[in-house]
């Protein structure tokens, strides 16, 4: 069996593994970015306790490697008498890492919002929450979009770490194929190509979006 036949034979299960990887990425982003926004607001809060709690969550989430976070969730939840599935642990761990990182990008975006437009909104008698919702958050998020897209690529790659907590994503599939067939180089090459097919256009898109956003202002 030549390499291409080998790849062809294993492609269906590799594709299923890639499906899991993408699902984890999407889940981590969909849950993590809104939480990241809340953390960013918390870190910018005037309430000291809230600020400290949020800052601690962010710093720990950014300081600890994603793999360590996954292990803590995977081995920690059973200690609390919970026995979630590996997939649930993966969602929780990756979401935490995502919200910690994205909160910093979003906070940077919020800080870049021109004070003049905020002041104008206040002068127009808009209530504080409206100013946040209609003026500060939309402008701040827009600024953060390129870094959030860059982060999305990184977290997509980081989903491969969930293999270590028994999630059947594409790296785990490759690993089991390799151990059964002893054709590790070929199968991991296929995995690499599959990752690249997603990350390369995504990086290209990120650059395009970044250019467009900088042109607008």
């Amino acid at each position, binding site marked *: 069996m030549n390499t291409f036949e080998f790849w062809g034979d294993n492609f269906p299960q590799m594709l299923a593994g890639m499906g899991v990887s993408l699902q984890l990425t999407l889940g981590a982003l969909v849950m993590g970015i809104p939480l990241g926004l809340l953390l960013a607001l918390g870190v910018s809060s005037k309430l000291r306790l809230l600020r400290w709690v949020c800052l601690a969550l962010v710093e720990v989430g950014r300081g600890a490697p994603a793999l360590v976070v996954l292990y803590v969730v995977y081995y920690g939840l059973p200690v609390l008498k919970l026995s979630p599935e590996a997939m649930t642990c993966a969602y929780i761990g990756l979401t935490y890492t995502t919200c910690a990182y994205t909160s910093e990008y979003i906070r940077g975006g919020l800080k870049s919002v021109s004070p003049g*437009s905020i002041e*104008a909104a206040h*002068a*127009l*008698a*808009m209530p504080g929450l409206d100013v946040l919702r*209609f003026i500060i958050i939309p*402008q701040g998020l*827009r600024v953060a979009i390129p870094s959030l897209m860059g982060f999305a690529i990184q977290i997509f790659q980081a989903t491969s770490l969930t293999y270590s907590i028994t999630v059947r994503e594409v790296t785990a599939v490759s690993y089991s194929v390799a151990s059964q067939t002893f054709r590790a180089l070929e199968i991991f090459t296929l995995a690499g190509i599959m990752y690249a097919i997603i990350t390369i256009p995504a990086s290209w898109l990120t650059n395009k979006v970044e250019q467009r956003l900088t042109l607008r202002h």
Partner: protein
Amino acid sequence: MTETIAETQTETVPKGRYSGKVDIGLKTPKYLVELAQVSKHFGSNHVLKGVSLRVKPGEVCSIIGPSGAGKSTLLRCINLLETPDSGNMVVAGQYVDLGKPQDRRALLSLRRNVGMVFQSFNLFPHLTVMDNIALPQRRVLKRTEAEAKEHGMELLERVGLADKADSYPAKISGGQQQRVAIARALALEPKAMLFDEPTSALDPELAQEVLTVMKEVASSGMTMLVVTHEMNFARNVGDHLVVMEDGAIIEEGDPEQIMSDPAQERTRQFLAAVINH
């Protein structure tokens, strides 16, 4: 309530000028904006040293004076973008004791009555011209989207920018941005408008189109407080002229009178500097 700090300090106010006592007893207020002994520090810097001022309904009050005199701070105290240390004021019938923390409802109702136009336009860059004007109407006046846009279109026509409704602020000139900012403030139907050097960031031709709009707003009966270096506007459109220096009003009265024959030497020097400029 007329017992204000002003009473003990009337001696510091030069003769012939308003003594700084808010008059809230009148059913039909004679003044739309009344400030009494407004004082403000930035740290140890005493920026407003008990400023008192009265503006009648429909009056255009121009405020001039050298840089650092406290003109912007004074305007920003009127809509409480800055928090004064002490003093009191009545704005469109609402009494405000400036020494106290303001409650949220009072703050918002004050700002609803007072529009502000900034030197740097301060449009919302992520919204189209129309949405800049429609958003505050929807959120503050609870107008529907359709009402807000209809009203917005009327205002854009009034400032001559109906064709720019769908443009983003970055795509139009500074003068056009400032006219949109005026329309945006007018959309909330304020009782008074504050202008802080609305043309200072603009080339002369663009400044002119903004001044034309301001003149039209003035002739519609709007009460206006205008910090400006445009002496022609102050002379021809303004009803009242206030000269500030070093946190205080040093002279005020009829613009024509002050410009041709200022009572204060400092005013004379300032006018000479501005006019020769």
